[in-house]
């Protein structure tokens, strides 16, 4: 059995596909920014706001800022925080002074359309993978523009753990002719 490192294996495969496969011997250069694996600012669809909730300043511009860590009762009580709730609460992500923005640990504001920068503070590996197109549901073109989604499009930022799904039907087991399933 061949014991080759994986990159060497890939190159060796070019030679190994002998016979009538006409493969180029050297890889062609990558097709520019459109096909780049790692996108610094991927184009994403709009954030998945609940209906009518944005812009938040519509209500919050007139409300006083209360930084006391508490359970919300007047509004947003439908949000059950299950995301490191022992150590964090709403204003650790949402900007206290302007609710139309989120903020990083440094205080820097980020927009909802760039919320991945916020998630990436703790989930750095996921962010790197996501930028490379390796984390998350993949649609688009493998040799052109990939379509990215925001973290929030799949993960509810307040309770990110996926719910279990009902599986599609199992395959039908084989049966002999004349034998009932």
């Amino acid at each position, binding site marked *: 059995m061949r014991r080759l490192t994986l990159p060497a294996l890939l190159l060796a495969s070019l030679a190994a596909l002998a016979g009538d496969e006409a493969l180029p011997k050297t890889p062609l250069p990558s097709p520019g920014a459109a096909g780049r694996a790692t996108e610094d600012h991927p184009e994403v669809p709009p954030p998945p706001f609940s209906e009518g909730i944005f812009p938040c300043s519509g209500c919050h511009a007139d409300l006083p800022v209360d930084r006391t860590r508490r359970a919300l009762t007047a509004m947003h009580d439908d949000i059950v925080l299950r995301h490191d709730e022992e150590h964090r609460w709403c204003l650790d992500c949402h900007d206290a002074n302007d609710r139309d923005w989120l903020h990083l640990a440094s205080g820097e504001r980020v927009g909802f359309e760039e919320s991945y920068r916020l998630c990436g503070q703790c989930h750095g590996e996921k962010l790197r993978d996501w930028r490379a197109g390796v984390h998350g549901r993949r649609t688009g073109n493998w040799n052109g523009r990939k379509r990215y989604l925001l973290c929030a499009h799949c993960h509810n930022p307040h309770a990110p753990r996926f719910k279990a799904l009902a599986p599609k039907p199992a395959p039908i*087991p*084989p049966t*002999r*002719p*004349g034998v009932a399933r």
Partner: protein
Amino acid sequence: MTFARRFARFVRGSVRLVLAGNGLYWGWVALLAVLIGSGVAAYADQVSTGLVLTSMRDQVSWGFYIGNFTFLVGVAAAAVVLVIPAYVYDWKPIREIVIFGELLAVSAIVMCLLFVMVDIGHPERFWHLVPPWGHLNIPRSILAWDAVVLNAYLAVNFVVVTHILYRAFCGRHYEKRLVIPLVLLSIPMAVGIHTVTAFLYNGLAARPYWNSSILAPQFLASAFCSGPAILLVVLQLLRRFTRFEIQDEAIWKIAELMAYAMFLNLFLHGAEAFKEYYSDTEHLLYTRYWFEGLDGHRTLVGYAWTAVALNVSAFVLFIVPAARRNRVTLNLGCLATYSGCYIEKGMGLIIPGMTPDTLGEIYEYVPSITELRVAAGVFAIGFLVFTLMLKVAVPISLGEFQDDVPAAAPVVPAIV
């Protein structure tokens, strides 16, 4: 007298011979005709509805047809058990009867080719294998090699027997310069056809039960005892129903050779069983399915131990000289050998090789009615071909079916 006219007389004479027989003969032919009819009807269903009428599914994609094919390649190769003593050692008692081994080889190969035809999804596309219109994937595909060597072996045997018999019909001796090289060639070819068939399984790394070096020698060993088993029965029948004389020594010698072949067969199986059980890897699963069953799936266990019992009994019966010479024990031994080898090489090879399948699933394969009917039809065709050839060959061998020869020089035809 031109060739065409003489050949026409040969054909007319053969037809007369074939149509002349007693009640037993016609009963036999009628039985074969019924089986062939049933087989053809079942096959017609299979062609129109598809192979779904068999019990084969994705999980066990080869079954009864290929099992029978494998067994019959062995029977065809077994002609060599007669050819070697006859032509290499020039031993007269077998030299007189070697032609029947070659006739059996021809019938067996016909059945092999038919079993492949009924197994494939598009039999009308068989020409895809025949260059230059088709594409034969040689040297990489073993099935392609098998197609070549089986047809070549059929051609060699067919040419030899037809030449010898036709020359005898014409009152002339066969052409030594043609026959002897072909017959000697048929020896490595016989080994070759069964080795290539073994390689068909042996080469598949995906099937650990088959991917064992022992498969080719084991195939040959079981071939060399199962093929002659049929022959011994046929020879005794010929002795009983025709004037053909077969020496006892010939029959006893064949039985003795079968004993050695069966010993090798049992030894090689034993070696295989040791390796599986002692190494005790996950590959043991297939052998366990055969001998013990897995997770309550025990369909083949009875067959496995029956085959072992039959093979061991056959070995004992043939290794004891007195048992070889006794007509009852001899025939019991033949029956035991044939059935034992048929089970372990047909079902005992194919099904455990694919159960559990490559993804660990167990689908219990048992041949369907359609498969049994089609297989019976193919066997009946083979037996019919063999019967009809014997019906012509025996009178020729006895000098009873001969073309008109000048009275001055009556030649007793020599088929030896």
